[in-house]
């Protein structure tokens, strides 16, 4: 069971929503489409489902060309951000509806419905109407309806976005469980990097209609192929700094330099863009060889066990996520430390030229 997109693009009214893309999704995999709003996630899903026809390219399902096939003829299930259930039917009927349309026997329907309801913890609520349920329960009902079809392709378009924070956490833990049970191809769209990391599987980073990178999630996270992917896959956003390499050293400005070791050794002399994630910024202890930067503290935000520090470094805004609770004086000068092992070097065009050495070790 594979879903293959070959040179698929989508142009609407002169505007390119999706640039020509090749993508292959394998059976039994969880695939995350990660990107900001309007990056093309929903467009991609609609193409995969068959709700829209691609402007160019073809879509292959299990080796067969399904590009023109109607969505009703494909084995697809879709779950949306707004909990979409039939409001006049009970939860039982809602979950049973896809099976009824396929003409299955009553016994089969009953067994499948109960199994899906069990998995989504809806068994005591089978007689209720969707509007009598809470948001989380309604979305569970929509998920159950998607599962019961046993479709080869399950598409989830930001399904948890309308739920409370804690509810989102809970359902997020359940989704991998249902995924493992189903064995189909899952495609999950989200704007939050953390969700991508929690779901695992493979991730496609999207930006303005282009897939910048597709691969196993930890790889895309730790070894982004370009600055755009690094930005997309980082919340809070990655910090950037212009650097230059001369001889065996990399100059970071501020009189700071680091020996060009590991992947940075082979770089040609010249100007580059260095990127580092907020959680690698330190303000207290630091490793040997860490570089120090003079910054001004703009504002701090405490989250209980960690602190977000917003810094001003010669006019550039940086964000750091440090451990512990630090109540620091705003506007004061603050020295921050950065271990060169955590620095990614990107070329002027944004492409990755030297990954952070810590990422290679992992």
């Amino acid at each position, binding site marked *: 069971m594979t879903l293959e997109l070959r040179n698929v693009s989508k142009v609407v009214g002169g505007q390119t929503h999706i640039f020509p893309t090749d993508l292959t999704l394998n059976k039994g995999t969880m695939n995350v489409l990660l990107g*900001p*709003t309007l990056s093309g996630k929903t467009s991609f899903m609609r193409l995969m489902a068959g709700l829209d026809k691609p402007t160019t390219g073809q879509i292959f399902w299990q080796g067969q060309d399904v590009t023109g096939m109607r969505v009703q003829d494909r084995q697809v299930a879709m779950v949306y951000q707004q909990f979409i259930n039939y409001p006049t039917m009970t939860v039982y009927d809602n979950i049973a509806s896809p099976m009824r349309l396929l003409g299955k026997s009553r016994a089969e329907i009953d067994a499948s419905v109960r199994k899906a309801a069990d998995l989504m913890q809806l068994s005591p609520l089978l007689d209720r109407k969707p509007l009598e349920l*809470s*948001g989380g329960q309604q979305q569970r009902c929509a998920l159950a309806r998607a599962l019961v079809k046993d479709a080869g392709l399950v598409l989830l378009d930001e399904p948890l976005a309308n739920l*409370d*924070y*804690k*509810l989102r*956490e809970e359902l997020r*833990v359940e989704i*991998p469980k249902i995924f493992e049970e189903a064995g189909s191809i899952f495609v999950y769209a989200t*704007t*939050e*990097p*953390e969700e991508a*990391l*929690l779901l*695992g599987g493979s991730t496609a980073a999207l930006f303005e209609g282009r897939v910048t990178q597709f691969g196993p*999630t*930890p790889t895309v*996270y730790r070894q982004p192929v370009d600055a755009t992917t690094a930005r997309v896959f980082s*919340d*809070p*956003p990655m910090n950037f700094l212009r650097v230059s390499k001369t001889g065996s050293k990399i100059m970071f400005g501020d009189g700071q330099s680091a020996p060009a070791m590991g992947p940075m050794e082979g770089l040609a002399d010249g100007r580059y863009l260095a990127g580092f*994630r907020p*959680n690698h910024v330190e303000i207290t202890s630091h490793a040997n060889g860490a570089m120090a930067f003079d910054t001004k503290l*703009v*504002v701090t*935000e*405490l*989250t*209980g*066990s960690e602190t*977000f520090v*917003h810094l001003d470094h010669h006019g550039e805004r940086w964000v750091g*996520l440090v451990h512990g*609770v630090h109540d620091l004086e*705003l506007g004061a000068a603050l020295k921050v430390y950065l271990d060169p092992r955590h620095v990614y070097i990107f070329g002027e065009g944004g492409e990755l030229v030297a990954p952070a050495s*810590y990422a290679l070790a*992992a």
Partner: protein
Amino acid sequence: MAKITLDNLAHSYLPSPKGEDDFALKELNHDWADGEAYALLGASGCGKSTLLNIISGLLHPSQGRILFDDVDVTHASTADRNIAQVFQFPVVYDTMTVRDNLAFPLKNRGARPQYIADRVQQIAQMIGMEAELGKRARGLTADAKQKISLGRGMVREDVNALLFDEPLTVIDPHMKWELRTQLKSLHHEFGHTMIYVTHDQTEALTFADKVVVMYDGRVVQIGTPQELFERPEHTFVGYFIGSPGMNVIPAAIDGQMANIHGATVALPQAYDALDGKVEIGVRPEFVTLTEGEGLPVKVRRVEDVGRHKIVRADLFGSEINIVAGEDTSISPDMTRVTFDPAHVNVYVNDWRRAGKAA
């Protein structure tokens, strides 16, 4: 800027409430200091929006009083209370320009045109919208509109409190960041009393000086983010704050030791005999996976979240979560966990119990 006092305040949406369950908001007695930033944090339906609407005057409580700077405003109208409210979705007057939007509250009070012009300029600078003053409000993005709502609230100098009802709901995730930081900066600069309602713990913890955690119409704990994190007074607070939430494990307490199915855990304080449902709570950040000592667990899943790892394991049949550092490697030999004794809390019937220093 005002101190807000809740005196015996409660509210029921039913005309004749019989028991506690009929009350959306159960009896509250609290003082909220002048000039502080508070967050009302809780799940949907916990009563936080009800409380906010009582403070703003859009709802009159069925019981009790509310006072601003010791003046009873329980039955005062919204306008008389001098508060400003920012709603979940941006409320702007579409047909007016940004400038007119900001000037509106002042115009309605008959302020002098020169004063209005100066004030609007000042506020526009604060929210970073000086360049858009002449534009029509209609075509702007959601976050710009929310900023206008915010500006309109702050344009009155004598505003008693700024109230926010889940204001970042419609904002794009990458803009949420900027708006949050801006709110925080504004609070530091101008010192208004701010009350922020949300169900998102990150928003609450980053915004507020003190967080009011609500559950089922009751205030369960008020404290700084650090206090809520390290010493949750109720298991709900432990669960709701922190991602993942606190681990709650049934145990038997004997002196300064807790007994879990035969294995023992050291406690920071000593306890006498306890009645009722006894549990210990320990946050995943304070649980360590070891190879040798500690309680036996079975690791079921390891999730790599980038900046740390979440290990989901099974401890005597119940779920336990562990947060491990980014660089920690999880080997299959790690079949035990230890708890940091300083951060183990004891809960009786869901409420935290302090023991005696040993």
